Protein backbone atom coordinates (compact mmCIF):
# COMPACT_ATOMS: atom_id res chain seq x y z
CA UNK A 1 0.00 0.00 0.00
CA UNK A 2 1.18 3.45 -0.90
CA UNK A 3 -1.12 5.92 0.89
CA UNK A 4 -1.20 9.54 -0.17
CA UNK A 5 -0.05 12.14 2.35
CA UNK A 6 -2.76 14.23 4.05
CA UNK A 7 -4.00 16.84 1.60
CA UNK A 8 -6.81 19.26 0.97
CA UNK A 9 -8.68 19.04 -2.33
CA UNK A 10 -10.62 21.59 -4.37
CA UNK A 11 -12.09 21.31 -7.87
CA UNK A 12 -12.98 24.80 -9.12
CA UNK A 13 -15.18 25.21 -12.19
CA UNK A 14 -13.64 28.44 -13.38
CA UNK A 15 -10.07 28.84 -14.61
CA UNK A 16 -9.83 32.13 -12.75
CA UNK A 17 -10.60 30.41 -9.43
CA UNK A 18 -8.00 27.72 -10.09
CA UNK A 19 -5.39 30.35 -10.96
CA UNK A 20 -6.17 32.31 -7.80
CA UNK A 21 -5.84 29.24 -5.61
CA UNK A 22 -2.51 28.40 -7.25
CA UNK A 23 -1.30 31.96 -6.98
CA UNK A 24 -2.16 32.15 -3.28
CA UNK A 25 -0.29 28.93 -2.58
CA UNK A 26 2.54 29.66 -4.95
CA UNK A 27 3.74 26.56 -6.75
CA UNK A 28 6.52 24.99 -4.70
CA UNK A 29 6.59 27.76 -2.06
CA UNK A 30 5.20 27.99 1.44
CA UNK A 31 2.84 30.74 2.48
CA UNK A 32 1.61 31.85 5.91
CA UNK A 33 -1.71 30.41 6.99
CA UNK A 34 -4.82 32.53 7.71
CA UNK A 35 -3.75 33.43 11.23
CA UNK A 36 -0.21 33.98 10.04
CA UNK A 37 1.17 31.47 12.56
CA UNK A 38 1.01 28.09 10.86
CA UNK A 39 2.98 27.38 7.72
CA UNK A 40 1.33 25.69 4.79
CA UNK A 41 2.84 23.58 2.10
CA UNK A 42 2.50 24.31 -1.57
CA UNK A 43 -0.56 24.19 -3.77
CA UNK A 44 -0.28 21.96 -6.84
CA UNK A 45 -2.46 21.53 -9.90
CA UNK A 46 -3.63 18.01 -10.73
CA UNK A 47 -5.08 16.96 -14.09
CA UNK A 48 -5.16 13.22 -14.86
CA UNK A 49 -3.01 12.55 -11.79
CA UNK A 50 -1.13 9.71 -13.50
CA UNK A 51 2.22 11.37 -12.78
CA UNK A 52 1.40 13.40 -9.69
CA UNK A 53 -0.40 10.70 -7.68
CA UNK A 54 2.42 8.12 -7.86
CA UNK A 55 4.91 10.90 -7.10
CA UNK A 56 2.94 12.02 -4.05
CA UNK A 57 2.58 8.40 -2.93
CA UNK A 58 6.37 8.19 -3.11
CA UNK A 59 6.64 11.46 -1.15
CA UNK A 60 8.62 13.08 -3.97
CA UNK A 61 7.08 16.49 -3.31
CA UNK A 62 5.37 18.48 -0.61
CA UNK A 63 1.77 19.38 -1.01
CA UNK A 64 -0.92 20.90 1.12
CA UNK A 65 -3.68 21.55 -1.40
CA UNK A 66 -4.45 19.85 -4.71
CA UNK A 67 -6.35 21.95 -7.23
CA UNK A 68 -8.14 19.55 -9.60
CA UNK A 69 -8.21 21.12 -13.06
CA UNK A 70 -10.58 18.61 -14.62
CA UNK A 71 -13.79 20.43 -13.64
CA UNK A 72 -12.73 23.71 -15.26
CA UNK A 73 -15.37 24.60 -17.82
CA UNK A 74 -13.58 27.08 -20.10
CA UNK A 75 -13.75 25.47 -23.56
CA UNK A 76 -10.23 26.35 -24.71
CA UNK A 77 -8.84 23.83 -22.21
CA UNK A 78 -10.49 20.91 -24.01
CA UNK A 79 -10.36 19.35 -27.45
CA UNK A 80 -8.58 20.02 -30.73
CA UNK A 81 -9.52 22.90 -32.98
CA UNK A 82 -8.10 24.83 -35.88
CA UNK A 83 -7.31 28.51 -35.58
CA UNK A 84 -5.80 30.28 -38.58
CA UNK A 85 -4.37 27.04 -39.93
CA UNK A 86 -2.69 26.07 -36.66
CA UNK A 87 -3.99 23.33 -34.39
CA UNK A 88 -4.87 24.19 -30.82
CA UNK A 89 -5.01 21.35 -28.32
CA UNK A 90 -6.56 22.06 -24.91
CA UNK A 91 -4.37 21.10 -21.95
CA UNK A 92 -7.14 18.97 -20.42
CA UNK A 93 -7.66 16.88 -23.57
CA UNK A 94 -7.04 13.26 -22.61
CA UNK A 95 -4.22 11.44 -24.36
CA UNK A 96 -6.80 8.94 -25.68
CA UNK A 97 -8.94 11.73 -27.13
CA UNK A 98 -5.91 13.44 -28.70
CA UNK A 99 -4.67 10.16 -30.18
CA UNK A 100 -8.09 9.50 -31.74
CA UNK A 101 -8.85 13.06 -32.82
CA UNK A 102 -9.56 13.16 -36.59
CA UNK A 103 -8.08 16.64 -37.08
CA UNK A 104 -4.90 15.88 -35.17
CA UNK A 105 -4.50 12.54 -36.95
CA UNK A 106 -4.90 14.21 -40.31
CA UNK A 107 -2.59 17.20 -39.72
CA UNK A 108 -0.02 15.78 -37.32
CA UNK A 109 -0.32 11.98 -37.47
CA UNK A 110 3.06 11.61 -35.77
CA UNK A 111 1.88 13.54 -32.70
CA UNK A 112 -1.38 11.58 -32.49
CA UNK A 113 0.72 8.41 -32.86
CA UNK A 114 3.13 9.45 -30.10
CA UNK A 115 0.21 10.05 -27.72
CA UNK A 116 -1.11 6.61 -28.63
CA UNK A 117 2.20 5.04 -27.51
CA UNK A 118 2.07 6.51 -24.01
CA UNK A 119 1.57 4.19 -21.04
CA UNK A 120 -1.50 1.95 -21.25
CA UNK A 121 -5.13 2.43 -22.38
CA UNK A 122 -6.17 3.27 -18.81
CA UNK A 123 -3.36 5.83 -18.44
CA UNK A 124 -4.30 7.42 -21.77
CA UNK A 125 -7.94 7.70 -20.68
CA UNK A 126 -6.84 9.53 -17.53
CA UNK A 127 -3.68 11.38 -18.56
CA UNK A 128 -3.92 14.77 -20.24
CA UNK A 129 -1.89 16.51 -22.93
CA UNK A 130 -1.04 19.33 -20.49
CA UNK A 131 0.03 16.98 -17.70
CA UNK A 132 2.12 15.09 -20.21
CA UNK A 133 4.00 18.22 -21.25
CA UNK A 134 4.49 19.22 -17.60
CA UNK A 135 5.47 15.68 -16.53
CA UNK A 136 8.06 15.75 -13.77
CA UNK A 137 11.56 14.63 -14.72
CA UNK A 138 12.40 11.05 -13.79
CA UNK A 139 15.44 9.28 -12.37
CA UNK A 140 16.04 5.74 -11.18
CA UNK A 141 17.41 7.09 -7.88
CA UNK A 142 14.41 9.34 -7.37
CA UNK A 143 11.21 7.61 -8.52
CA UNK A 144 11.28 5.25 -5.57
CA UNK A 145 9.56 4.99 -2.21
CA UNK A 146 10.65 7.27 0.65
CA UNK A 147 12.05 4.18 2.39
CA UNK A 148 14.17 3.26 -0.63
CA UNK A 149 15.51 6.79 -1.02
CA UNK A 150 16.28 7.19 2.68
CA UNK A 151 18.23 3.91 2.63
CA UNK A 152 20.53 5.12 -0.13
CA UNK A 153 20.65 8.72 1.09
CA UNK A 154 18.55 11.50 -0.39
CA UNK A 155 19.70 13.28 -3.54
CA UNK A 156 19.72 16.88 -4.76
CA UNK A 157 16.26 16.71 -6.26
CA UNK A 158 14.83 16.53 -2.77
CA UNK A 159 16.38 16.90 0.68
CA UNK A 160 19.86 15.62 -0.27
CA UNK A 161 23.17 17.26 -1.13
CA UNK A 162 24.56 14.93 -3.77
CA UNK A 163 23.57 13.43 -7.09
CA UNK A 164 23.83 9.65 -7.41
CA UNK A 165 24.02 9.80 -11.21
CA UNK A 166 26.80 12.36 -11.51
CA UNK A 167 28.60 12.45 -8.15
CA UNK A 168 29.77 15.96 -7.35
CA UNK A 169 27.28 17.53 -9.74
CA UNK A 170 25.50 20.68 -8.60
CA UNK A 171 22.52 20.23 -10.89
CA UNK A 172 19.98 17.46 -11.33
CA UNK A 173 20.02 15.50 -14.59
CA UNK A 174 16.77 13.56 -14.12
CA UNK A 175 15.34 12.74 -17.54
CA UNK A 176 12.52 14.29 -19.52
CA UNK A 177 10.29 11.23 -19.98
CA UNK A 178 7.40 12.86 -21.82
CA UNK A 179 6.83 11.61 -25.35
CA UNK A 180 4.78 14.72 -26.07
CA UNK A 181 7.54 17.10 -24.96
CA UNK A 182 10.10 15.66 -27.38
CA UNK A 183 7.85 15.75 -30.41
CA UNK A 184 6.26 19.12 -29.61
CA UNK A 185 9.78 20.55 -29.39
CA UNK A 186 10.58 19.15 -32.83
CA UNK A 187 7.31 20.46 -34.31
CA UNK A 188 8.04 23.97 -33.03
CA UNK A 189 4.86 23.97 -30.92
CA UNK A 190 4.01 26.67 -28.42
CA UNK A 191 2.28 26.53 -25.05
CA UNK A 192 -0.22 29.06 -23.76
CA UNK A 193 0.66 29.94 -20.20
CA UNK A 194 -2.01 31.61 -18.10
CA UNK A 195 -1.69 33.11 -14.64
CA UNK A 196 -3.60 35.59 -12.53
CA UNK A 197 -1.37 38.34 -13.92
CA UNK A 198 -1.67 37.44 -17.57
CA UNK A 199 -1.57 35.25 -20.56
CA UNK A 200 1.37 34.47 -22.90
CA UNK A 201 2.45 32.03 -25.56
CA UNK A 202 5.94 30.53 -25.28
CA UNK A 203 7.72 27.96 -27.44
CA UNK A 204 7.69 24.51 -25.84
CA UNK A 205 11.44 24.56 -26.42
CA UNK A 206 11.82 27.43 -23.95
CA UNK A 207 9.16 26.16 -21.54
CA UNK A 208 11.35 23.13 -20.91
CA UNK A 209 14.50 23.85 -18.90
CA UNK A 210 17.70 21.89 -18.38
CA UNK A 211 17.60 21.70 -14.56
CA UNK A 212 15.82 18.55 -13.36
CA UNK A 213 14.53 20.22 -10.22
CA UNK A 214 12.90 23.13 -12.06
CA UNK A 215 12.28 21.83 -15.51
CA UNK A 216 9.46 24.22 -16.43
CA UNK A 217 9.79 27.97 -17.00
CA UNK A 218 6.49 28.61 -15.22
CA UNK A 219 6.04 31.27 -12.56
CA UNK A 220 4.34 30.26 -9.33
CA UNK A 221 0.63 29.88 -9.98
CA UNK A 222 0.86 29.62 -13.77
CA UNK A 223 -0.81 26.88 -15.80
CA UNK A 224 -0.41 25.60 -19.32
CA UNK A 225 -3.90 25.91 -20.80
CA UNK A 226 -3.42 24.93 -24.44
CA UNK A 227 -0.88 24.02 -27.09
CA UNK A 228 -0.51 25.44 -30.57
CA UNK A 229 1.05 23.24 -33.21
CA UNK A 230 1.98 25.30 -36.28
CA UNK A 231 0.56 24.23 -39.63
CA UNK A 232 2.72 21.68 -41.43
CA UNK A 233 3.91 22.99 -44.81
CA UNK A 234 3.48 20.78 -47.88
CA UNK A 235 6.42 18.41 -48.06
CA UNK A 236 6.40 17.80 -44.29
CA UNK A 237 7.91 14.46 -43.23
CA UNK A 238 7.89 13.53 -39.55
CA UNK A 239 8.45 10.49 -37.37
CA UNK A 240 8.88 9.58 -33.72
CA UNK A 241 10.90 6.63 -32.46
CA UNK A 242 10.62 5.46 -28.87
CA UNK A 243 12.92 2.95 -27.24
CA UNK A 244 11.55 1.20 -24.19
CA UNK A 245 11.92 -2.02 -22.29
CA UNK A 246 8.42 -3.29 -23.09
CA UNK A 247 6.25 -2.16 -25.99
CA UNK A 248 3.46 -1.24 -23.58
CA UNK A 249 3.25 0.82 -20.38
CA UNK A 250 6.93 1.78 -20.14
CA UNK A 251 8.39 5.25 -20.29
CA UNK A 252 10.95 5.90 -23.04
CA UNK A 253 14.58 5.13 -22.22
CA UNK A 254 15.49 7.07 -25.35
CA UNK A 255 13.43 8.78 -27.99
CA UNK A 256 14.01 10.58 -31.27
CA UNK A 257 11.67 12.98 -33.04
CA UNK A 258 12.52 13.99 -36.61
CA UNK A 259 10.70 16.67 -38.59
CA UNK A 260 11.85 17.41 -42.14
CA UNK A 261 10.43 19.87 -44.63
CA UNK A 262 11.17 19.03 -48.26
CA UNK A 263 11.04 21.19 -51.37
CA UNK A 264 8.92 19.91 -54.31
CA UNK A 265 11.96 18.29 -55.93
CA UNK A 266 12.79 16.39 -52.71
CA UNK A 267 15.66 18.58 -51.50
CA UNK A 268 15.65 19.17 -47.75
CA UNK A 269 14.54 22.68 -46.76
CA UNK A 270 14.95 22.17 -43.05
CA UNK A 271 15.44 19.33 -40.63
CA UNK A 272 14.90 19.21 -36.89
CA UNK A 273 16.00 16.21 -34.88
CA UNK A 274 15.27 16.08 -31.15
CA UNK A 275 16.68 13.39 -28.87
CA UNK A 276 15.01 12.92 -25.51
CA UNK A 277 15.00 10.86 -22.30
CA UNK A 278 18.61 12.02 -21.79
CA UNK A 279 18.39 14.70 -19.10
CA UNK A 280 15.76 17.26 -18.11
CA UNK A 281 15.35 18.92 -21.47
CA UNK A 282 14.87 17.36 -24.93
CA UNK A 283 18.07 17.94 -26.92
CA UNK A 284 17.75 19.67 -30.26
CA UNK A 285 20.57 18.33 -32.44
CA UNK A 286 22.49 21.34 -33.77
CA UNK A 287 24.43 21.95 -36.95
CA UNK A 288 22.12 19.93 -39.23
CA UNK A 289 21.64 22.79 -41.70
CA UNK A 290 25.11 22.45 -43.21
CA UNK A 291 24.76 18.69 -43.39
CA UNK A 292 21.47 18.36 -45.24
CA UNK A 293 19.92 21.59 -46.43
CA UNK A 294 19.40 21.86 -50.16
CA UNK A 295 20.19 18.19 -50.64
CA UNK A 296 18.04 15.07 -50.74
CA UNK A 297 17.69 13.06 -47.52
CA UNK A 298 19.35 9.96 -48.96
CA UNK A 299 21.23 7.24 -47.10
CA UNK A 300 24.44 9.27 -47.02
CA UNK A 301 22.59 12.24 -45.50
CA UNK A 302 20.99 9.95 -42.92
CA UNK A 303 24.45 8.73 -41.90
CA UNK A 304 25.72 12.28 -41.46
CA UNK A 305 22.73 13.21 -39.30
CA UNK A 306 23.00 10.01 -37.24
CA UNK A 307 26.70 10.64 -36.60
CA UNK A 308 26.04 14.25 -35.59
CA UNK A 309 23.35 13.15 -33.10
CA UNK A 310 25.70 10.50 -31.71
CA UNK A 311 28.40 13.11 -31.08
CA UNK A 312 26.00 15.40 -29.23
CA UNK A 313 24.03 12.93 -27.10
CA UNK A 314 25.40 11.37 -23.95
CA UNK A 315 22.87 9.26 -22.05
CA UNK A 316 23.55 9.11 -18.30
CA UNK A 317 23.02 6.42 -15.66
CA UNK A 318 19.71 8.03 -14.64
CA UNK A 319 17.64 5.01 -15.61
CA UNK A 320 18.07 1.26 -15.37
CA UNK A 321 18.73 0.81 -19.10
CA UNK A 322 22.50 0.80 -19.73
CA UNK A 323 23.77 4.25 -20.85
CA UNK A 324 26.31 2.75 -23.27
CA UNK A 325 23.56 0.78 -24.99
CA UNK A 326 21.33 3.84 -25.08
CA UNK A 327 24.14 5.87 -26.64
CA UNK A 328 24.74 3.18 -29.24
CA UNK A 329 21.01 3.33 -30.00
CA UNK A 330 21.03 7.09 -30.68
CA UNK A 331 22.18 6.79 -34.32
CA UNK A 332 20.02 3.70 -34.80
CA UNK A 333 16.87 5.54 -33.74
CA UNK A 334 17.83 8.61 -35.77
CA UNK A 335 18.20 6.49 -38.90
CA UNK A 336 14.94 4.66 -38.19
CA UNK A 337 13.08 7.90 -37.59
CA UNK A 338 14.38 9.51 -40.77
CA UNK A 339 13.67 6.41 -42.87
CA UNK A 340 10.17 6.19 -41.48
CA UNK A 341 9.63 9.90 -42.07
CA UNK A 342 10.75 9.59 -45.70
CA UNK A 343 8.49 6.58 -46.27
CA UNK A 344 5.44 8.29 -44.79
CA UNK A 345 2.97 9.80 -47.21
Amino acid at each position, binding site marked *: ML*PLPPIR*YLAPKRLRDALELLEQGGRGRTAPDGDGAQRRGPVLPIAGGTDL*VPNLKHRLLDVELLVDLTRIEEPHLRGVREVAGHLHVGALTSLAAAAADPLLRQRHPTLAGAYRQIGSPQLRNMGTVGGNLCLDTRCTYFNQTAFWRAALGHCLKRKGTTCHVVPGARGCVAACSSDGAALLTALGAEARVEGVAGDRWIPVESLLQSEGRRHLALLPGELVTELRVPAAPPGRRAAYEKLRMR*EAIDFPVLSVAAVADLAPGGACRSLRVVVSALSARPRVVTGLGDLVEGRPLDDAALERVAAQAYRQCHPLANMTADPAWRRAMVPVLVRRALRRAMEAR
Partner: protein
Amino acid sequence: MKESVRFVVNGDPVEVLVEPGATLLECLRQDLGLTGSKQGCDKGDCGACTVLLDGRAVLACLVLARSVEGRRVTTVEGLAEAGRLHPLQEAFDTQGAAQCGFCTPGMLMSACALIEENDQPSRQDVREALSGNLCRCTGYTKILDAVVKAAGEVHQARAAPKGGGKP
Protein backbone atom coordinates in the same frame (compact mmCIF):
# COMPACT_ATOMS: atom_id res chain seq x y z
CA MET B 1 -11.06 15.90 7.87
CA LYS B 2 -13.38 13.59 6.00
CA GLU B 3 -15.52 15.03 3.26
CA SER B 4 -18.55 13.68 1.50
CA VAL B 5 -18.51 12.41 -2.08
CA ARG B 6 -21.56 11.23 -3.99
CA PHE B 7 -21.41 9.04 -7.06
CA VAL B 8 -23.07 6.06 -8.69
CA VAL B 9 -21.45 2.68 -8.27
CA ASN B 10 -22.76 -0.27 -10.29
CA GLY B 11 -26.03 1.58 -10.77
CA ASP B 12 -26.55 2.50 -7.11
CA PRO B 13 -26.14 6.07 -5.88
CA VAL B 14 -23.83 6.21 -2.85
CA GLU B 15 -22.58 8.90 -0.49
CA VAL B 16 -19.29 8.19 1.27
CA LEU B 17 -17.19 10.16 3.75
CA VAL B 18 -13.57 10.03 2.63
CA GLU B 19 -10.27 11.69 3.46
CA PRO B 20 -9.34 14.08 0.61
CA GLY B 21 -6.23 11.94 0.07
CA ALA B 22 -8.20 8.68 -0.31
CA THR B 23 -8.05 7.00 -3.70
CA LEU B 24 -11.11 5.62 -5.43
CA LEU B 25 -9.63 2.15 -4.90
CA GLU B 26 -9.41 2.65 -1.13
CA CYS B 27 -12.95 4.03 -1.09
CA LEU B 28 -14.32 1.08 -3.07
CA ARG B 29 -12.49 -1.60 -1.10
CA GLN B 30 -12.53 -0.18 2.42
CA ASP B 31 -15.60 2.05 2.62
CA LEU B 32 -17.95 0.26 0.22
CA GLY B 33 -16.70 -3.30 0.77
CA LEU B 34 -16.28 -3.81 -2.98
CA THR B 35 -13.08 -5.84 -2.79
CA GLY B 36 -13.32 -7.19 -6.34
CA SER B 37 -11.01 -4.43 -7.60
CA LYS B 38 -7.51 -5.44 -6.55
CA GLN B 39 -4.62 -3.43 -5.22
CA GLY B 40 -1.48 -4.69 -6.96
CA CYS B 41 1.21 -2.06 -7.36
CA ASP B 42 -0.87 0.93 -6.15
CA LYS B 43 1.01 3.17 -8.61
CA GLY B 44 -0.34 2.67 -12.10
CA ASP B 45 1.82 -0.18 -13.38
CA CYS B 46 -0.31 -3.31 -13.17
CA GLY B 47 -3.97 -2.66 -14.00
CA ALA B 48 -5.36 -4.88 -11.21
CA CYS B 49 -7.42 -1.92 -9.96
CA THR B 50 -9.05 -1.15 -13.33
CA VAL B 51 -12.65 0.10 -13.09
CA LEU B 52 -14.88 1.97 -15.53
CA LEU B 53 -15.42 5.67 -14.92
CA ASP B 54 -18.30 6.94 -17.07
CA GLY B 55 -17.65 3.88 -19.23
CA ARG B 56 -13.89 4.36 -19.67
CA ALA B 57 -11.24 2.11 -18.16
CA VAL B 58 -9.20 3.92 -15.49
CA LEU B 59 -6.85 2.94 -12.69
CA ALA B 60 -8.68 3.34 -9.39
CA CYS B 61 -5.38 3.50 -7.47
CA LEU B 62 -4.56 6.82 -9.19
CA VAL B 63 -8.02 8.40 -9.04
CA LEU B 64 -8.84 10.58 -6.04
CA ALA B 65 -12.12 9.45 -4.51
CA ARG B 66 -13.23 13.08 -4.20
CA SER B 67 -12.80 13.59 -7.93
CA VAL B 68 -15.57 11.14 -8.92
CA GLU B 69 -18.33 13.39 -7.54
CA GLY B 70 -21.42 12.93 -9.70
CA ARG B 71 -19.83 10.29 -11.93
CA ARG B 72 -20.62 6.68 -12.74
CA VAL B 73 -18.26 3.92 -11.55
CA THR B 74 -18.51 0.30 -12.64
CA THR B 75 -16.54 -2.40 -10.86
CA VAL B 76 -16.30 -6.13 -11.48
CA GLU B 77 -19.16 -6.57 -8.99
CA GLY B 78 -21.38 -4.72 -11.47
CA LEU B 79 -20.73 -7.02 -14.43
CA ALA B 80 -23.17 -9.82 -13.62
CA GLU B 81 -26.81 -8.89 -14.12
CA ALA B 82 -29.76 -10.45 -12.33
CA GLY B 83 -27.68 -13.36 -11.13
CA ARG B 84 -26.36 -14.10 -14.63
CA LEU B 85 -22.65 -13.80 -15.31
CA HIS B 86 -21.48 -11.44 -18.04
CA PRO B 87 -20.37 -13.30 -21.19
CA LEU B 88 -16.81 -12.23 -20.37
CA GLN B 89 -16.99 -13.88 -16.96
CA GLU B 90 -18.46 -17.05 -18.51
CA ALA B 91 -15.73 -17.11 -21.13
CA PHE B 92 -12.93 -16.57 -18.58
CA ASP B 93 -14.33 -19.56 -16.72
CA THR B 94 -14.81 -21.92 -19.66
CA GLN B 95 -11.55 -20.93 -21.41
CA GLY B 96 -9.47 -21.29 -18.25
CA ALA B 97 -8.39 -17.65 -18.41
CA ALA B 98 -7.97 -17.25 -14.65
CA GLN B 99 -5.34 -18.98 -12.57
CA CYS B 100 -4.65 -17.20 -9.28
CA GLY B 101 -7.33 -14.72 -10.30
CA PHE B 102 -5.66 -11.59 -8.97
CA CYS B 103 -5.49 -9.86 -12.35
CA THR B 104 -8.90 -11.13 -13.45
CA PRO B 105 -11.17 -8.29 -12.26
CA GLY B 106 -8.92 -5.72 -13.95
CA MET B 107 -8.71 -7.80 -17.13
CA LEU B 108 -12.50 -8.13 -17.19
CA MET B 109 -13.01 -4.38 -16.85
CA SER B 110 -10.50 -3.51 -19.58
CA ALA B 111 -12.10 -6.14 -21.83
CA CYS B 112 -15.56 -4.83 -20.98
CA ALA B 113 -14.58 -1.30 -22.02
CA LEU B 114 -13.29 -2.70 -25.32
CA ILE B 115 -16.38 -4.78 -26.09
CA GLU B 116 -18.74 -1.93 -25.29
CA GLU B 117 -17.05 0.03 -28.05
CA ASN B 118 -16.16 -2.74 -30.46
CA ASP B 119 -17.78 -6.17 -30.26
CA GLN B 120 -15.83 -7.48 -33.24
CA PRO B 121 -12.28 -6.86 -32.07
CA SER B 122 -9.31 -8.48 -33.78
CA ARG B 123 -6.86 -10.36 -31.60
CA GLN B 124 -4.54 -7.36 -31.92
CA ASP B 125 -7.32 -5.02 -30.71
CA VAL B 126 -7.72 -7.24 -27.65
CA ARG B 127 -3.98 -7.27 -27.03
CA GLU B 128 -3.89 -3.49 -27.13
CA ALA B 129 -6.95 -3.11 -24.91
CA LEU B 130 -5.34 -5.39 -22.31
CA SER B 131 -1.83 -3.97 -22.64
CA GLY B 132 -2.19 -2.13 -19.31
CA ASN B 133 -3.10 -5.28 -17.40
CA LEU B 134 -0.33 -7.55 -16.17
CA CYS B 135 -0.81 -11.25 -15.46
CA ARG B 136 1.91 -13.27 -13.79
CA CYS B 137 0.21 -16.63 -14.24
CA THR B 138 -1.52 -17.35 -17.51
CA GLY B 139 0.80 -16.24 -20.27
CA TYR B 140 -2.15 -14.24 -21.64
CA THR B 141 -3.13 -16.66 -24.44
CA LYS B 142 -6.22 -17.99 -22.72
CA ILE B 143 -7.23 -14.51 -21.66
CA LEU B 144 -7.12 -13.40 -25.31
CA ASP B 145 -9.13 -16.50 -26.31
CA ALA B 146 -11.74 -15.73 -23.67
CA VAL B 147 -12.16 -12.09 -24.69
CA VAL B 148 -12.47 -12.95 -28.38
CA LYS B 149 -15.06 -15.61 -27.55
CA ALA B 150 -17.08 -13.31 -25.30
CA ALA B 151 -16.98 -10.53 -27.87
CA GLY B 152 -18.44 -12.92 -30.42
CA GLU B 153 -21.29 -13.76 -28.08
CA VAL B 154 -22.01 -10.15 -27.27
CA HIS B 155 -21.99 -9.34 -30.97
CA GLN B 156 -24.47 -12.12 -31.72
CA ALA B 157 -26.75 -11.08 -28.87
CA ARG B 158 -26.70 -7.50 -30.15
CA ALA B 159 -27.37 -8.58 -33.72
CA ALA B 160 -30.26 -10.81 -32.68
CA PRO B 161 -33.64 -9.22 -33.50
CA LYS B 162 -35.06 -9.72 -30.00
CA GLY B 163 -33.36 -9.62 -26.62
CA GLY B 164 -30.52 -7.68 -28.27
CA GLY B 165 -28.86 -4.54 -26.99
CA LYS B 166 -26.60 -4.53 -23.99
CA PRO B 167 -25.68 -7.97 -22.65
